[in-house]
């Protein structure tokens, strides 16, 4: 009978649909509350991260401390997710050179409540809080934990290497 073919097809479709929904839910809960992979590229975090690209693991569990490398939602462009290092927490005083190309004039800012101050490790080529100001804490997406690729540099992402 023709209808039983569609019955079987419908049953198969719903079974696959339920499986997809279960896998998606599991992935969703894991990436939103535990850890998620990210692809970071660009020159602003040299030498911690390669400019040509790194696949990293970021976690959402721990509370942020000074020196953590984080993924955040950019306050300038809602679609961009830059990776920078937390240099100041709320209440900290941060000093930075306002226009390094022009002169050595520096400013000191107190990070307001509910915000963090982020800077790239390669300050000469980094758009960070020195341009867009302190970042509200809710825009922080996760803390970088581990680098997965390139394989030669498989390992934890640590404190800035002092040159």
């Amino acid at each position, binding site marked *: 009978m023709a209808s039983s073919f569609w019955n079987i097809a419908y049953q198969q479709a719903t079974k696959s649909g339920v499986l997809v929904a279960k896998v998606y839910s599991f992935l969703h809960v894991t990436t939103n509350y535990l850890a998620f992979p990210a692809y970071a590229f660009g020159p602003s975090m040299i030498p911690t991260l390669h400019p040509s690209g790194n696949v990293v693991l970021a976690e959402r569990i721990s509370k942020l401390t000074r020196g953590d490398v984080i993924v955040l939602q*950019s306050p300038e*462009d809602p679609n961009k997710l830059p990776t920078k290092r937390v240099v100041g927490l709320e209440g900290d005083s941060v000093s930075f050179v306002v226009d390094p190309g022009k002169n050595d004039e520096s400013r000191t800012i107190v990070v307001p409540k509910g915000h963090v101050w982020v800077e790239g490790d390669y300050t000469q080529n980094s758009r960070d809080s020195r341009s867009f100001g302190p970042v509200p804490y809710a825009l922080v997406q996760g803390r970088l934990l581990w680098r997965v690729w390139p394989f030669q540099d498989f390992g934890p992402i640590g404190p800035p290497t002092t040159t």
Partner: protein
Amino acid sequence: MRWLRYLNQWRGTAKEALEQVSIVAKFLCLIHVTDRYIISSTHVQGPSMLPTLNLTGDVILTEHLSHRFGKIGLGDIVLVRSPTDPTRMVTKRVLGLEGHRLSFSADPLVGDSSVSVVVPKGHVWIQGDNLYASTDSRNFGPVPYNLIEGKALLRVWPPRFLGSLR
């Protein structure tokens, strides 16, 4: 060895219990995904949105889809995560999108001195409808767009005020 046999007797029950737990877990997942990403109800209270929203508290339906597609427009009432306290959500109206120039009175109780700002790229300007009792962009500045978490659709409680919010 008697306790092993005892455990075996409970195997059937344990299997049934696990099945029931997994049904409950799947239901909770579905509720969570709907509540966070599609539509949810929020209890809002406070004087900052009078007369649109009541002081003692309203329940409003908020949808969480528009902000992901950039469909937040002028005059929308939005749920925003507070830039000063990341654990709190505030409900305000969007009065300026990026690039808009706004004038506002720095202190409406004191005088008419007005300040003019341009909303920077990637930010929105939010204000409560009750200018005299609202902490909003006039205090903490324009808010990054990504802090918007939902758009208010309609009010569902108290029942005599059921309907759209304008």
